[in-house]
């Protein structure tokens, strides 16, 4: 199949154009053998189905980072048919730097077409570009576009087949000289005024104004996530389960005779003749309710907010602000982005550490994230256990995790050899995100979560039933009781929750609630469950990312630190 590759610098609005060209049927996947994600979709040109691939943003073909190297490999590998076409997307407000990549693409000798994106922004930034002249010089079609309004997309669509190999000749060492000449020839600058968004953009990286802005944004984000998440649960998911699903399951329950192994596996134990979706522990009750009605609503709310912050251009600014602090943990500011991703789900968070250059940074970032950054499932668990004690109980748990995150980062930074590289990042201007592309991204993240979470929750619930039936929890409980009771001060029955926590944390709530723990025990159980091991899905990703040896080291750190912290809490609370 003929392939069209979208290639351009980061932050040039590629995903909006991709989304305009391809419609709904889009898949995001990891490039084979790597964790660099790319999206692929399809479009029709003259009644022929054509694949469209959105190559991750690159500044140059002489890759300057691991992620860029993979993107460049992908680009070279995907061009294998003489009809394959590169659509080079350029930020028209930064013609000079963007043309550097364009000239490198010209040297590849493949059919090329150039989009001058953000065309609408040239007007108020006082930039005029002579499109015809640029087309003449480059010898390939040049089309002004605006991904957000859709301007120029039709033209791009109809002219894609006109893409051709450029005959523009230059010596590599004269590249910047040539670019200078081209820019001189086609671009005129007039006086401009700074816009409100530019002023805000600058204010949010200056420390004095930046920190208050950051705090306001984070608080507001938290408020939105909570409101959206709670409304989804209260008005959509709980009514669905209570009003529609529950009567069906009760009928099934009486059909199965209200008891027996099959009944317990599918439906679980009834509490006062009713289904308790958290504690019943059946595949069709707890197994579905926990991931769908307890965690998913917050995942949806969280990724909506995070993707908005991402696409608006805020996150690199946050990275710059926290850079000095993150260096104490052996990381640079941008690692805050993978930490934030980890708050949704540790799996994409662990994948997100790919933006960090060194193995050392990736090890520190993944380890402290897996231990101390609670994902939405863990947050749901903590709220389920400690939420009844209000802000005090919650702040004990999250405060402890925050301190652990910092202390562990500092310790790893001091003990591991090497140093952390410095931040080097482009700060894009604030832009209002293209909502359709944003929603598609949120949708892909949600489906990824559902695929990761639901099967493991179901497996977890199934295993719980088997282990209960075989009395294995009691057996292990007796063996582990010195640790669980002696160090952590928890009853030995809590072992079951700790075992299932290897698979999923959210399922463990239903096992702890019936134990009638005190607040102190709930706090300790929450902290230890969050810290001692990531869920199995994150674990699998970390093995792929770090390698088995590093993962074993990380796992040892996890166990030691969770027992230490749990033990300390047991002594001081």
């Amino acid at each position, binding site marked *: 199949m003929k392939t069209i590759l979208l290639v351009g610098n980061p932050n040039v609005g590629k995903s909006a154009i991709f989304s305009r060209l391809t419609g709904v049927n889009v898949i995001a996947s990891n490039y084979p053998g790597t964790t660099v994600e790319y999206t692929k979709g399809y479009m029709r040109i003259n009644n022929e189905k054509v694949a469209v691939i959105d190559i991750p943003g690159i500044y140059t073909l002489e890759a300057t980072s691991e992620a860029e190297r993979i993107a460049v490999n992908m680009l070279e590998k995907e061009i294998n048919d003489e009809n394959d076409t590169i659509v080079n997307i350029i930020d028209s407000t930064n013609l000079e*730097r963007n043309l550097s990549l364009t000239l490198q693409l010209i040297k590849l000798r493949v059919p090329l077409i150039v989009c001058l994106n953000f065309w609408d922004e040239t007007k108020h*930034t006082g930039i005029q570009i002579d499109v015809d002249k640029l087309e003449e010089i480059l010898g390939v079609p040049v089309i002004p576009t605006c991904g957000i309004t859709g301007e120029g997309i039709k033209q791009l669509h109809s002219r894609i087949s006109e893409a051709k190999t450029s005959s523009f000749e230059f010596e590599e060492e004269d590249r910047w000289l040539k670019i200078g000449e081209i820019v001189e020839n086609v671009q005129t600058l007039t006086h401009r005024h700074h816009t409100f968004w530019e002023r805000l953009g600058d204010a949010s*990286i200056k420390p004095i104004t930046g920190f208050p802005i950051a705090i306001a944004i984070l608080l507001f984000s938290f408020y939105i996530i909570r409101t959206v998440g709670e409304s989804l649960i209260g008005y959509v998911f709980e009514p669905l389960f209570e009003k529609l699903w529950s009567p069906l399951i009760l009928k099934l329950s009486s059909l199965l005779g209200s008891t027996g192994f099959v009944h317990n596996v599918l439906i679980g134990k009834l509490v006062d003749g009713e289904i308790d979706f958290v504690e019943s522990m059946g595949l069709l009750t707890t197994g579905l309710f926990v991931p769908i009605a307890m965690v998913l609503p917050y995942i949806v709310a969280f990724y909506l907010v995070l993707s908005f912050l991402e696409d608006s251009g805020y996150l690199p600014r946050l990275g710059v602000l926290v*850079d000095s602090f993150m260096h104490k943990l052996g990381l640079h500011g941008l690692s805050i982005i993978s930490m934030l991703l980890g708050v949704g789900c540790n799996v994409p968070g662990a994948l997100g550490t790919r933006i960090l250059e060194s193995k050392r940074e990736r090890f520190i970032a993944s380890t402290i994230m897996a231990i101390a950054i609670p994902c939405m499932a863990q947050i749901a668990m903590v709220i389920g256990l400690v939420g009844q004690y209000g802000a005090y109980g919650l702040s004990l748990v999250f405060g402890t995790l925050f301190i652990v995150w910092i202390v562990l980062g500092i310790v790893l930074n001091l003990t591991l050899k090497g140093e952390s590289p410095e931040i*080097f990042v482009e*700060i894009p201007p604030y832009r209002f995100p293209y909502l359709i592309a944003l929603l598609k991204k949120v949708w892909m993240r949600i489906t990824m979560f559902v695929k990761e979470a639901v099967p493991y929750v179901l497996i977890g619930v199934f295993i719980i039933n088997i282990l209960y039936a075989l009395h294995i929890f009691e057996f292990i409980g007796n063996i582990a009781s010195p640790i669980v009771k002696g160090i952590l001060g928890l009853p030995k029955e809590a072992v079951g929750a700790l075992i299932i926590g290897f698979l999923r944390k959210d399922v463990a709530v239903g096992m702890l609630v019936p134990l009638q723990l005190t607040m102190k025990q709930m706090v300790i159980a929450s902290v230890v469950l969050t810290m001692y091991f990531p869920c199995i899905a994150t674990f699998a990703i970390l093995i792929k990312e770090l390698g088995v040896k590093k993962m074993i080291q990380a796992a040892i750190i996890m166990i030691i630190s969770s027992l230490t912290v749990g033990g300390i809490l047991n002594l001081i609370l």
Partner: protein
Amino acid sequence: MGDIKLTDLKAGEQAIVVAINGGIGLKRKAEAQGLRVGVKLTKLTENFLRGPITIRINNITIAFGYGIAQRIIVKRLSEKKE
């Protein structure tokens, strides 16, 4: 007027890049983002505790660590103007 390190330039001042004292990796990375010898830049912000520095070249804003900024040598342009 002598050449100074980018860290010695004050926020808001403009300068021309004279040299980038770094390995091929840093030079490439800088060049890819539009930072190379001969371009005019404006220093936007600096952070306390030797935090990162942000500069603007044309319409591009770039942030990098203090250590990198120390290796970028610039010539200060006398007046502040936009």
